């Protein structure tokens, strides 16, 4: 088996108030330790704000600025420009936001920052809903998933954030999963070395929001990758596609059956989701082939 390898530098402290078994806390641990101490974080309201904060304590070793939900990328841009003026251009500025602050409410400021190619590393911790406020749907919530505001299952598709970002032709976009830590580390390191706007979207299964066990987030995110529901890939300059996990070895049924938000699905529903996943998978591979 492949060993997980990165240097744990103590960038995230114990005692944070993420739920037991939280995928977001674990992913934050990996991102912060990979980025290191020479960094400033900008946090949008989200579970992240709770994990990093609970004023007056802090769970993160780097300084972080808690901003509004619509303005994470804009605030990060400003912090970066101020640091540049102070001659601290080597300092990494991290935007840390959830899917609500990225796909929905913060989309305008992220799009603007991407259009200006601001030198920030923006990390979206995507738990597919407003899980911090009780589990309402976001535009990242996938089709058929039950949330507090879609009790019969969402009727529309998950917004394709990667395609939107790719259309901005920013230098680097990647997906990552807490089940594949070495891959996540490699992507953060790669992004850190690139100038311009970099966006990492990490799938973070939400234990109460998705209805999975306290010990199941790695298994769930692994199945998301292995079923092709959440492929691991990179997009360079908005055009070059690179697959990091090239095989699709699990049926979507295995992925959805772990989660209470999909409990109501019929076999036909699952077959429909499978068809969508297969279509997207082929489309992604066609893009890889076109490189």
């Amino acid at each position: 088996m492949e060993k997980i390898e990165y240097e744990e530098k103590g960038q995230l402290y114990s005692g944070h108030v993420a739920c037991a078994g939280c995928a977001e806390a674990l992913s934050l641990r990996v991102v912060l330790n990979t980025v290191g101490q020479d960094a400033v974080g900008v946090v949008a309201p989200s579970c992240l704000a709770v994990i990093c904060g609970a004023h007056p304590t802090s769970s993160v070793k780097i300084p972080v600025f808690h901003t509004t939900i619509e303005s994470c990328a804009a605030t990060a841009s400003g912090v970066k420009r101020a640091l540049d003026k102070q001659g601290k251009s080597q300092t990494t500025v991290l935007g840390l936001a959830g899917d609500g602050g990225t796909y929905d409410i913060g989309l305008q400021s992220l799009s603007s920052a991407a259009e200006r190619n601001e030198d920030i590393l923006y990390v979206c911790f995507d738990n597919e809903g407003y899980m911090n406020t009780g589990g309402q749907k976001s535009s990242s919530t996938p089709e058929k998933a039950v949330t507090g505001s879609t009790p019969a299952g969402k009727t529309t598709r998950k917004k394709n954030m990667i395609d939107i970002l790719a259309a901005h032709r920013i230098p680097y976009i990647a997906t990552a999963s807490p089940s594949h830590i070495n891959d996540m580390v490699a992507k953060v390191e790669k992004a850190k070395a690139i100038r311009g706007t970099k966006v990492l979207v990490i799938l973070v299964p939400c234990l109460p929001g998705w209805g999975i066990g306290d010990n199941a987030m790695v298994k769930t995110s692994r199945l998301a990758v292995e079923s092709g529901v959440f492929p691991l890939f990179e997009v360079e300059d908005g055009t070059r596609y690179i697959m990091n996990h090239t095989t699709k070895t699990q049926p979507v049924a295995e992925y959805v059956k772990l989660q209470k938000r999909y409990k109501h699905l019929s076999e036909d529903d699952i077959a429909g989701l499978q068809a969508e996943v297969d279509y997207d998978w082929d489309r992604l591979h066609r893009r890889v082939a076109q490189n």
Partner: protein
Amino acid sequence: MSREPSFLWSNSTSEGRLTGTWRTASPDYRNLPSPCLGACPVNGRIATWIGQVTKGDYHGAWTTLVDNNPFPSIAGRICHHPCETACNRVEHDEAVSICALERYVGDQALEENWQYPKPETMHDQSVAIVGGGPAGLSAAYQLARRGFRVSIYESQAQLGGLLRYGIPSYRLDKSILDAEIARIVNLGVTVHLNTSIADKGGLEALRAEHDAVFLATGATKSKVLPGLDYSQPWVRDGAKFLAQTNAGEACDLGRHLVVIGGGSAGIDVARTARRLGRDVTVLALEPDDLLPAQRTEVVEAREEGIRFVCGAMMQKVDAGADGLTINCVEVAFTPGAARGQFTIAPVDGSAFTLAADAIIPSIGQDADLKKYGDLLDSAGPVIAHDENWQTSSPGIFAGGDLTSMDRFVTEAIGMGKEAAMAIARFVDPEQPAFVKPSDPAVPFKVINTAYHSADGRESPAHVAVEQRLQSFGEVQQRFTKAAAEIEAKRCFSCGTCIYCDNCYFYCPDMAITKLDQGYEVKLDYCKGCGLCVAECPTGAINMAEDLGR
């Protein structure tokens, strides 16, 4: 710019918040037994020594092996390997080739001439061991390495017992046997060859000379097949046939041989006769799928051109001028509750005949219960003993085939070890007692198979059939180094920590501390999510209820 504390800024880390109070269960590093450990007749720590092989530590692996069994090269060749049957990997793809790996390590030890360290302290007590077969030699080894004075009394001209006189060299080359025995003798064991302790008086005299006696004379009396006249020149007892041919004597039987008995001994006879150029038929009571021999033995025997007539029995033999006519009938075979027990019923109208020049009955051996008169009580077909392997005669212990119907070499080795520990304690109460592993074995369901690919097992090469029949050379070959390395990595290491760091890196609360050897849970922060347990590839961690920090 001023950096004075402000109500806008955080002023402390979250480490003051002890999230361990949320917990109702906590992880517990247990290193639970693997299923192979419980199945192994010598309680070998298989997951441990295979782990040492994966690190390239062959001497360490050998040291772990010989803690329980001084014959890894021999067991790696001929053990009936209940470990592989119990292997959790069976439910994933195929069992780990434990036997072939054991042989690889054992052969490495012989190549490098690794010897046992001399005991650190010597004791004055002496133990006599009667019978230099697997049980006796195993006991001699365990007592000698603990510093006791050991004398073996062997009735034959060489040590080895069944290993030498019963197992043909195409399964176990004599040079391997000699080398693993020599290593035991080199510990300082006194050996008396051609010395039979043949009667009650002899055994009593021996008991008087020593602080304890271990009796391991095996099951030496061949069972007699009713209705067969053993005085005829065309009948040869199987054990006698094997002893003669293993000693290099010429075979004086005709061309067409019928071997009666489908156990390992019967197959050994058949394959030996085949190598002596005979046409061989095996006649067995059991149907094909219930033959008591190991499956690989049956498969290899068939490859070598041996014919099997299963589910049938001999009724009568007619000797004519140009050979024998064996009258047989098919039987309905019903296995009994214990190994070796069964009932049979002849099937009406199924009579048939087999032609042969000679018959070799090989239907098993009985222990000689009369040899020592009334000195030792018996229990059914074997010598009675208590839980410490002591017979009804104080100070006289017994083990191996003499005391058990589990007639396997490694069972005998295991009994020799357990009895030796009991004897050591009998002569020196400060010696530690043998403790049988009692924790339940790690089940397959706790192994996280995401960390284990399913590519099937490596198998050692076998010599081609045409070549096999030309000589008594070993059929099964040693693993190549590359195959051994691949195979060792297939081990799930059930219940044994492999220091992979998954628990450390998958903790969202940084609540696991890495130690030099292992890990520690920071109970101040562990929220009890169980991710470390779920993502442990070997099942070495358990969740245990924990209601208070």
